[in-house]
């Protein structure tokens, strides 16, 4: 295994910072371990906290190619692993029939149509058969049915894919695998057991401020601090959907565009619709911010 990829913990953290991803202790440790142990990482947490972003950033940091498999209900083998190119196979058979008397043995033909040439690779197979370094992102794995999850198990634990007609294809390199989940359902034990587990929650005040400072151009330290504080305050209110980090960033960008130097209640209320997506949440928050203060 390439133990030269990341030197140590601080290297991981600095590397991520270089690609504008601010990792906390937990994130850095898990990414570091994932590479050291060659294990996939299962990332859970509320929407918009940078789960997918982490995988992209790790790819950018290690200069690896990112292969992404977006999961959805109804995803199957043919779309995730590999598929035989039926049309091409049919053409091949027909072409054969068209030519001379079909003297060729059926088995020979069979060997012919079930080989690499007729195989369409899908993300998972592509990830392990690639020669270069790969970061494989399996996004929103909680969306597939429990039965489909089993598809992933072989590749996650042994980094190989078994194709009945061809045999087992083993990985040329161990890809770094990230699975993200919004926790809409409990994932199976078998899957969890094979992964390192990382829960990414809303960031602490300081980290959120840092994120705002790195990601939003031209924002003053003072404004970033205020933004982070107000967002934390809003997250404490019981809402249908708390503002996520990406929404915080959108909000901060808007404020910068509007030329706001320091936020007062009115401005906050007027731009709340960027942070919150439900009318009832907006109303409730607006009320809270004015009354209690």
């Amino acid at each position, binding site marked *: 295994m390439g133990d030269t990829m990341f030197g140590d913990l601080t290297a991981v953290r600095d590397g991520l910072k270089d690609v504008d991803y601010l990792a906390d202790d*937990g994130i850095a440790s*898990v990414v570091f*371990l994932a590479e*050291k142990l060659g294990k996939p990482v299962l990332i859970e947490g509320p929407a918009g906290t940078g789960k997918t972003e982490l995988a992209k950033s790790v790819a950018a940091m290690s200069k690896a190619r990112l292969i992404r498999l977006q999961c959805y209900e109804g995803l199957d083998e043919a779309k995730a692993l590999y598929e035989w190119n*039926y049309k091409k196979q049919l053409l091949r058979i027909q072409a054969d029939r068209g030519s001379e008397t079909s003297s060729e043995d059926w088995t020979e033909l069979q060997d012919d149509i079930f080989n690499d040439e007729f195989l369409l690779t899908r993300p998972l197979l592509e990830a392990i058969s690639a020669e270069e370094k790969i970061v494989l992102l399996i996004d929103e794995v909680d969306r597939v049915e429990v039965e489909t999850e089993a598809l992933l198990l072989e590749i996650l634990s042994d980094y190989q894919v078994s194709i009945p007609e061809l045999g087992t294809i083993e990985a040329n390199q161990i890809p770094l695998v990230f699975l993200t989940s919004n926790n809409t359902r409990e994932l199976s034990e078998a899957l*969890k057991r094979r992964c390192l*587990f990382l829960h990414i929650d809303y960031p602490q005040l300081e980290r959120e401020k840092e994120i705002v400072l790195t990601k939003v151009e031209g924002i003053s330290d003072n404004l970033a601090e205020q933004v982070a504080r107000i967002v934390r305050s809003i997250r404490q209110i019981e809402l249908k959907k708390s503002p996520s980090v990406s929404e915080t960033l959108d909000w901060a960008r808007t404020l910068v565009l509007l030329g706001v130097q320091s936020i007062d209640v009115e401005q906050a209320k007027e731009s709340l619709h960027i942070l919150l997506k439900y*009318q*009832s949440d907006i109303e409730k928050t607006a009320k809270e911010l004015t009354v209690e203060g």
Partner: protein
Amino acid sequence: MLDLMSGFVVELRNAGLPVSLTENLDAMEAVKHIPIEDRAAFKYALAATLVKNEQHWKAFETVFEVYFSLRGPEYNVLDEDGEIDEDSLEEWMSQQMRGMGGQGSAEDMSPEEIAEMLFRALMNADEAMMAAMARAAVTQFAGMEPGRPVGGTYYLYRTLRNLDLDGMMDRLMEEAQQRSDGDMTPLQERLEREEFENRIEDLKREIEAEIRRRLVADRGAEAMAKTLRKPLPEDVDFMHASREEMANIRKAIQPLTRKLAARLARKRKHKRKGPLDFRATVRQSLSYGGVPAEPRFRNPRPNKPELVVVADISGSVAAFARFTLHLVYALQNQFSKVRSFVFIDGLDEVTHMFQDEEDITNAVHRVNTEADVVWVDGHSDYGHAFGVFWENFGSEINSKSTVMFLGDARNNYHATNAWVVKETAKKARSVFWLNPEPKSYWDTGDSVITEYATHTDGVFECRNLRQLEGFVDNLA
């Protein structure tokens, strides 16, 4: 180190976390790559390999604190091999217990000095100072007695009482007011207050950790871990859940209802394929030179599942009812058609209350105040409530409806009217009953659960999240 790790894992299992053998091995492998001095990284390495559910994080943290808190470099109790050095541990302990032994100035201060230092530390968010003050405060105020088999709650209470953190809060706010020349906007004031609240929370946690460290030093990790063991969130009994636990349960319900909706929906989706779609089949066949190699089928028309929830909200299940209402509310967001009814001895429909109110607290409040559920005396009367249900709404139950009854079936010896459940079961697709009582109590006293149970598709004990989840899983 190996002993320590296996002890740690055993304790995690005792606390209810499912740690498999492979995970254990992974953890062993993981810590090899982590420098032991880096406590945070060490902790996250263990967590990543051993804890696969965010709900278990708290339990993990407690056990981790107990097992590894003494093993930091700041306590100098580790020798080179990472083993505990008994002598230095003892020395450190006696120092802590006496509280006066050469620990430097922070340890022998008067209460006023501590308060003042703490105030400044909080004001300036000086973490090192806060930790030092937490240590000093515990020494001064907790009055810890070696050898007592306690979990530390009392010590924590004593320390906090002496620190008067509410007073501290007021002082902090005053100081902040002065610093900004008294012209803080309400928003700023709110933000400042939250910042200080946050720091004080940190301080409390630090104090708690400090007490725990000393208790571990005194009593040993195993005994301490045992005292601190608490049920995992999914094992917390709805009937005896504390406020904080209830909040956790509420959060966990949301995904469960989504799962329930998915289960009911999936059943109908996978049951059969629709009839042959002739046009699509012909179109598809063109790519195979006119051979209909891949027949196409129409998707079956999805019939939306309808849910009817009938919930007991009487006093005997008051705590469960709180949970029930949250469950109903969450369900309402998942299913296209939910009708909800609540009853004590009368019965009322509350569907509209949940629909009108975007906010769950308001909705629950409205149900509790507005719903007309008392008929005679406000003691449970399932018989009468069911009678009303059948009379007014029975005709609306059809072959698409799934009916869920929630209640303990404690009927105060009234007539049961079990025929209502029987008739409902005849018309509805399925009927389930969730009972918040332990199974051993069923049919004791005035409980008549079996009379109803015979007509349902199943009665399930439902006292904690694990059981609720089991119920949802079994549906498929």
